[in-house]
């Protein structure tokens, strides 16, 4: 408690001056070439979000985990009001990641609580899919600080353990398959792994925050390649079977399965933010559109890419 108070005072004087944003109520509209920009949700929010994770469902509904209020919202369309999903239990949860799941289900990771909760496409709560405390006890893993979650279509899952610099690998049905990596900077080692994404082809992209890179794991869990970034990668998402999106400070990079850059889209400032835009870990989408969280405005920005 004392440490918190001390550091709070410490930062209070240093952080304010970083981004002088001119208040403005108008939605910024200049769009990068070949894209159109839309803000989610369209209507006013009584409280801005800090979207920490987002998941575009096959039904085109959007699931958003809001860190500011620590809640899950389902949005049926950009112009509709977000619907808050029920809390799983009286115990407090803190949502840190979202992932699709086999069938008509969605996984939501409560990182500090060490549980993955399951919902259906309508937002109905279905139960606890896995409790990492039980997994850790059975396999001698110690305390797990789960931060990122990615599940492929067969139910194979990757969970990042941020505090312990490792990645946990699970098979279908949450059968524990092992631990990948340790603290370090070599390929296969991690420094604070955070968000993760699964492609339809079974590979996983993991953010290695401390080493400032993203690492691609193949379908058997071995490291395939990595891509270094100048900034700290905030979040990742698969865009269809062949592409990944990487949310960086103020832009979204699109890479292919060899992690080669395919395109780069700047993230403009949101409402009331002047030029002070920055991405949050929430990123999701398809080949034709990317949704990324914009932290200053507390909304999601839709980059609709004009393709065919």
């Amino acid at each position, binding site marked *: 408690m004392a440490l918190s108070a001390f550091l709070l005072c410490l930062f209070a004087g240093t952080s304010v001056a970083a981004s002088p944003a001119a208040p403005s109520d108008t939605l910024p509209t200049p769009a990068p070439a070949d894209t159109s920009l839309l803000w989610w949700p369209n209507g006013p929010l009584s409280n801005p979000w800090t979207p920490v994770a987002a998941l575009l469902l096959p039904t085109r509904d959007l699931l958003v985990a809001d860190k500011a209020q620590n809640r899950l919202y389902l949005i049926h369309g950009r112009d509709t009001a977000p619907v808050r999903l029920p809390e799983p239990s009286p115990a*407090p949860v803190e949502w840190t990641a979202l992932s699709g799941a086999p069938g008509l289900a969605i996984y939501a990771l409560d990182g500090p609580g060490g549980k993955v909760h399951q919902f259906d496409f309508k937002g109905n709560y279905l139960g606890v899919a896995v409790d990492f405390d039980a997994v850790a006890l059975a396999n001698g893993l110690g305390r797990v600080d789960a931060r990122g979650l990615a599940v492929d279509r067969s139910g194979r899952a990757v969970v990042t353990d941020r505090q312990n610099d490792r990645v946990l690998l699970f098979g*279908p049905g949450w059968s524990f398959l092992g631990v990948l990596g340790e603290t370090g900077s070599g390929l296969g080692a991690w420094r604070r792994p955070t968000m993760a994404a699964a492609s339809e082809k079974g590979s996983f992209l993991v953010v290695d*925050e401390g080493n400032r890179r993203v690492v691609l794991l*193949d379908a058997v869990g071995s490291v395939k390649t990595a891509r270094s970034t100048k900034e700290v990668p905030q979040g990742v998402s698969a865009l269809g*079977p062949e592409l990944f999106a990487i949310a960086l400070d103020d832009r979204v990079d699109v890479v292919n399965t060899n992690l080669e850059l395919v395109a780069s*889209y700047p993230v403009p400032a949101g409402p009331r933010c002047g030029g002070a835009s920055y991405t949050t870990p929430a990123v999701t989408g398809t080949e034709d559109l990317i949704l990324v969280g914009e932290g*200053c405005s507390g909304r999601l920005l839709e980059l609709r*890419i004009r393709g065919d």
Partner: protein
Amino acid sequence: MRRYLFAGGLLAAGVLWSVPILGAERSSFLPVERDTLVLEPGKSVACLHRPNVFARTLDLEEKGTHLVDGTDYILDADTGCFTLLVPDSVGAGHRIVATYQALPLTLEGTYRLREDPHHRQAAPANDPSLTQAKPIGFTSASDVSDLDISGSKTFGVEMGNRRDLKLQQSLDLRLTGRVSKDVNLLAILSDQDLPFQPEGNTAELEDLDRILVRLESPRAGASLGDVSLSATGLSFLDLHREVEGFSGNASMGTAKAQGTVARAKGEFASREFFGEEGKQGPYRLTDRTGNTDIVVVAGSEKVWLDGVLQKRGAEEDYTIDYTLGEVTFTSRRVITANSTISVDYQYATGRYQRQIAFAGGEGQLGNFGTLRATYYSEGDNADHPVGGDLTQSEIDLLAAQGDSAQVQCGTRYVGVNQGDYDLIVDAKTGRQIYAFVDGSGDYRVEFVDVGDGKGEYQPRADSTGTRTVYIFVGEGNGGFVPCRDLPPPENRHIADLHWETSGKAGRVLAEGAFSKADGNVLSALDDQNNHGNAFTAGGEATALALGKGFHITPRFNWRHVDEAFESPARLRSAFFGRDWNLTGTEEIRAEDLAEGGASFAFKDKARWTSSIGRLALADTFSALRQEQALNVQTRWVTGNAAWNTVHEDVGFAEGRMKRWGGEVLLGRFRIAPRFRGTHETRERPAGDGERHRDWETALVMPAGNGPFRAELGVGRRLDDSLRTGNDGFTQVRDTERGFGEVEGRWRDLSLLMRYEARGVEVPGGTRERRDTGRLDARHQAVRGAWSALLSMDVGTEGLRQRTKSIVADSTGYFDEFGNYVGPGGGYDVEYGPPGNEVLSGRVDLSSRFRWTPPGEDVKVAPWLRAVAWEAFLSVDESSALPLVEPRYFLNPGSYLDPASTLDGRLSLRQSVDLFPSHRQLGFRMRHEIRESLVRNASAGGDSLVEGNTQKTFVGTLRSNPAPAWDAELEGSLGHRREEVRTSAAPFLQDTDIRSGTLRGGRRLESGRHRGRVSMEGTYSEEVGEGKEARGWILRPKFQWSVNNIGRLEVRGSYTDLVSSTGFTGILGPGASQLIAGWRVDVISEVRIHKGIVVTGVVGSDHPEGLAAVTVGRMEVRGTF
């Protein structure tokens, strides 16, 4: 159900296929397609872009010349291809423009090249890697068609030396994309044979969705699975339902049609009630019998407060717990004893499967307006009651009763050895049979006489001869059956016809509805009152100019609702009766309502509305009502005022209501004064009544005058009561309030602060505080690298506690602090039923702070880059004090105070990284506090107070001395205090927790091969008074992988944890030796084909003194 599905399919097919029937020539309902076709030299066959072409609509044009069917070309209408008979004389090929009409649904795919849209984006000029970007090529289905087919299939087998063989499989199949130019498809088929742990009673596993199909086109759509059914704009059938089944819709020009056949997820209910003074919630919803043990269908609810529809959400108006059926209002909506709350919802029913059929159509009648016809049917399927089919005797039992049939029995599961009967299953027939076991069974069973030869049980005297027991004798051999609750199956049909037209003169509408509702479809009794009807008509003239800026708008409304009319939807606005001097919660039937009035407006600045109406209910009640309302909006003043009276006539008695009030905002000033006041008097025919006087004044700083919107004000409300036989009103409540609100954003800081202090005084009592408030402050900077949040909610909520006792029991499974520790714990825990609801003050406080070093292009102090920090604090506290004062919620020291706390939890967690990006050396500190305090209600004596506090501090030193080597040293110190207080001597246990870990490893890398060898050793101990546990663990590990081929992991552990007797801490119940032994796990994964991976896992556990356990699993996983 199948019948409905079939009917639905026919409906959809009829809608879709009715189009070509209409199209002998070009149809106005179908779009005209226009294709430009280029035939290469020498080619004479070309295909239009759509098949199923209407031949008579086709027009082929080449260089301005229209080709003739049969002479210039021959068309195959089914495929859409034609053969040119015109010779290619110059050898340059043909360029033909075709216009035609075709069936709107085209199920053949169109194949074309697809450009990767991302390749169009210009790369950053300074990014050389973009120049190496390669085209994606034709590697997926989406590259060659618009229909993506993907999925996965797994097979697994699991075996072990102490378990049976177990097979597992799963399938996930997904189709998405366009099946034709205008038709989009989404289909998901899922078959998951994978276990997961259900929580609560939200859903049964077998009820989970397995299939979803959605077909959409501009003119038609269809869905299978979970669908929402809604019909709005009707007076007697304003529906919204969440259902499972088939739904289709189509539109053709101005005509629209919609149909649904489905199974209801729940039963519709509507509840209206008053709030409790100062209680924000929870307010429990009930089923039709008043039972509160219900599950509300998610998203099905609509909530009105004081007649205003509310929004769900913690930042909006209310939250709802679907599993408990509880509604709680946020601090935005302060609840008083006069708040009118109305809720429409669906709840999961335990009666019968309920089937729904819906069909609706709407069409334009030229200049005669719009006609809309709707039919809705909702009925229980008597063949499928929840909990087993009805026997013939049960059907006869229900048939003998009328619509009010309700057979309730005491047949219940009552707990182990608490009943006289056991439920056994006949191994041959699978039939469930109740067997008499005299006091050692789990069921209490009641039997009902259905006549000789119709039952399966016969009565006998028990061994003492004092009781009658029932023995199973076989179907048809007895005269009794086990009695169970038998709600009568019911159904309801309603047809509605709505006509509306509007023009220059105004708008007129008429609507009629007919209903048939049977409360027991198995009984012919009471069926004479099943039919009902309802009619309404209304109109409003266009504003008529009277000159000099004045306008008049007359209107009228008439409605008749039969006494037997039943609708599955809400017929009247929330608390409709309050406007007619009724209580508002009564059921209204046999209604005749007539209203008329006019509005006089002056230049949009002022509007006076005058209306008069009469309401009659079943010849027993009639009332006349008049209302005068004035609205003013000018630069200086915005306001409204209203005066209305009701004169009520019930037999020989009369009642009356008077209400007047208004609100004024002087908006010319930067800080605008606002005044509001109401006065309401109700005197009912029975001689009772009530009176409310309410005023409020505030200073308002509207949005736009600065970064924040603010309001500050005070108010008072006096509630008086008139009792029968008394001449005057007497005061029952005096409520004073002060409130303030600030909301807005300044630079990177957003702030929401709202507080309302309420003091409530009743005659003879003391003034009680019922405060509500919310604080939300957020700050983000340095592109999100720094973020801080502080939020707090204050309110008063109802709390239902259970009694809990920890009792000594040598065979118990719990320790003296109520922790489950397994056999030999020495104590047992006994819970009582949920107690009565008590109002309790409630505080929710949470704060989060995070700092992560941003990218190099962000300017921050260099030393800040050497620190990463994350902190989280959460307090959730219910206090026995209904009074929530600022000094209480702003002082964290008062939280978890045993003197007042009912249920409090505090959780603090923070971690600091030093040199987070330094590659050779890093240091991390983690600090955690978890604290809880629960005061368990007591049925009689002293309450049981349980406290638990655990504090932990962990430091980790990490090092990569060389890229291939890593090492880590971690130390942990902690303290745990457990305390249980009762009237007897309190239990108290202090435990110190210490541990140290050293781990290190070496990486191996060569080409595509990567590996690592590592070792970890941990020593830990827990020491308490008279109890201790200590031990160590060694964990060697070897990993090896080949990129894209496979990987192998072998890990082992050797554990030796020892405890002295009696310790019941985290290591387990008291035993001289807790865990000792070794374990080996081998995991391998091999990719045998592009999309196929084989996984093998073997684990062998050898605990000391126990039999070894070996488990193996092999799994094949394919993705496509």
